[in-house]
């Protein structure tokens, strides 16, 4: 599974504080620890509090680059911030994210082609989040059509079926799992699939248990990537074990250690 580490996000108090005081050490520390924990990408989000989000993004990327060469998932809804992040990341990046709305696709797909990077696309249309899997698959198809139009290959697209908190929308995870299955059949090569995992457990008591159970179920449905808290060791153990059971990794008695030796 492609592990996208979620922790460098201005929504978290420590990151927000580091951005405001221009203190690089907490950012470097998060980059190092996430890389050691097995992250394949580091998500970078300046959050809502930054005075100048373009400058904040440039500073975050430069600070991460002092300690890590991992590709970065530039996480913003603002076009100028996205471009600044992609430029600063020097090509090793992905776009997080577009939606299926035309005005976004028209801007972000050309950007994905220009930088030659993968792009996460949420199955959200002008009408919002479709209620079920069929509606999401329809949005995903529109996204794929827009990608092809701009010369972006389907396997550079990561379809995000928008997982919502189970505490509020209990039928939602089932629709997301079904969307993951359907997405793999939309084209050949198939687009990849991704979820922003931690959202599923918002406002729940057993957050970590819900997260890791949901992740293993999604992997069973064919999930390729997830934005996760990779510093959660039990989550990573569950993910590695699911990968093993899906025959994505060769078994050995110490398969956890073997996986970690290969990643990070």
């Amino acid at each position, binding site marked *: 599974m492609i592990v996208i580490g979620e922790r460098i996000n201005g929504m978290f108090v420590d990151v927000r504080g580091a951005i405001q005081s221009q203190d690089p050490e907490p950012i470097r520390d998060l980059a190092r620890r996430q890389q050691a924990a097995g992250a394949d990408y580091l998500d970078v989000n300046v959050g809502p509090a930054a005075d100048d989000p373009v400058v904040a993004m440039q500073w975050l990327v430069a600070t991460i680059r002092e300690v890590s060469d991992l590709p970065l998932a530039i996480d913003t809804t603002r076009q100028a911030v996205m471009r600044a992040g992609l430029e600063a990341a020097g090509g090793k990046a992905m776009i997080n994210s577009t939606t299926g709305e035309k005005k976004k696709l028209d801007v972000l797909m050309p950007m994905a082609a220009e930088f030659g990077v993968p792009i996460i696309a949420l199955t959200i249309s002008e009408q919002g989040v479709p209620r079920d899997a069929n509606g999401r698959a329809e949005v995903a198809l529109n996204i794929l059509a827009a990608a092809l139009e701009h010369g972006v290959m389907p396997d550079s697209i990561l379809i995000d079926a928008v997982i919502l908190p189970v505490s509020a929308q209990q039928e939602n995870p089932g629709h997301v799992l079904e969307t993951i299955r359907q997405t793999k059949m939309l084209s050949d090569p198939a687009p990849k699939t991704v979820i922003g995992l931690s959202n599923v457990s918002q406002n729940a008591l057993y957050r970590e248990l819900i997260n890791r159970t949901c992740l293993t179920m999604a992997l069973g449905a064919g999930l390729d990537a997830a934005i996760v808290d990779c510093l959660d060791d039990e989550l990573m153990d569950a993910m590695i074990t699911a990968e093993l059971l899906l025959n994505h990794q*060769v078994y050995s008695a110490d398969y956890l250690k*073997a996986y970690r030796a290969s990643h990070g």
Partner: protein
Amino acid sequence: MSETFAMPVEQWSGSVLEVQIGATAEQGGTRGRTVTVGGAATLPFLQYEGNPGARPAIAFEVLDRPRESWAEALEKVYGDVKNDAAAWAQKCEQEFGADLICLRLEGANPDELDRSPTECTAIAKQVAAAVTVPLIIWGCGNAEKDNNIWPELSPALAGERVVLASATEDNYRTIAACCLADKHICLTEAPLDINIQKQVNILVSEMGVKPQDMIQYQTTGALGYGIEYAYSIYERSRLAALDGDAMLRFPMLSVVGAEAWKTKEATAGPEEVPEWGDLERRGILWEAATATTLLPGGTDILVMWHPTAAQMVRAVLDELTGA
């Protein structure tokens, strides 16, 4: 609209490690030359896809005492040197162009000659002095005995980057420690089982042996004796390495000669099976066919016996690599 067809090219995230066998005087050894194996970033012989890695090396096997019975074809080649491992090794290098010499200390086995670690060390040193190419040295297969041999033999060849064989799941500590202490390469062995191979690799890594000092070995079956199973294990191992599995990315060795020449097809004479044709030619072909079948599986070192079979394999390699 016109488009040209482009051959699809597979992209891999990982590659096989490069391992240098042997060390020259500047590098702390005494070898006249070294052999680097591995390095492939794609499946074997698909040069158009990426770095095919080093050309597979051919090692000639040398025994520390003559076999009681072996094929007439081998007697013809090695009869004059079979009682002298150093002369045997020298013949393989000078007459047959061996890339590596693989010395097997069969005589140390308590059920055979029960040679002492001191005697084994002396033989290994004589062989090392007789040739300029790098060495692979195999114990006798008796774990207890081998664990007495390595602590004496290994320091006597310190710095030579000899491949010491072999570490198994049940017996790896002594040999791994000797490789660490004396700068040798550790051969990790598994019984045609990719899971156990990975486990032995983890265990040896945890002892502190560096990845570039490890080569892996799955017990090989000859043509007609489980070779398809060996092939599929090799291939799966190579695919895992290309997919970035750090614990399976080591170059692979296969034992061809010893396996091929113990088959019925290589030893049964015309009085037993007249319809099988000339025995000598049959044995040589059996060894060559076993070797060439394993090549596309991704083997990096072939340990062979008969020089004519080795010559046939070189010709196949020339063709497959476009040399």
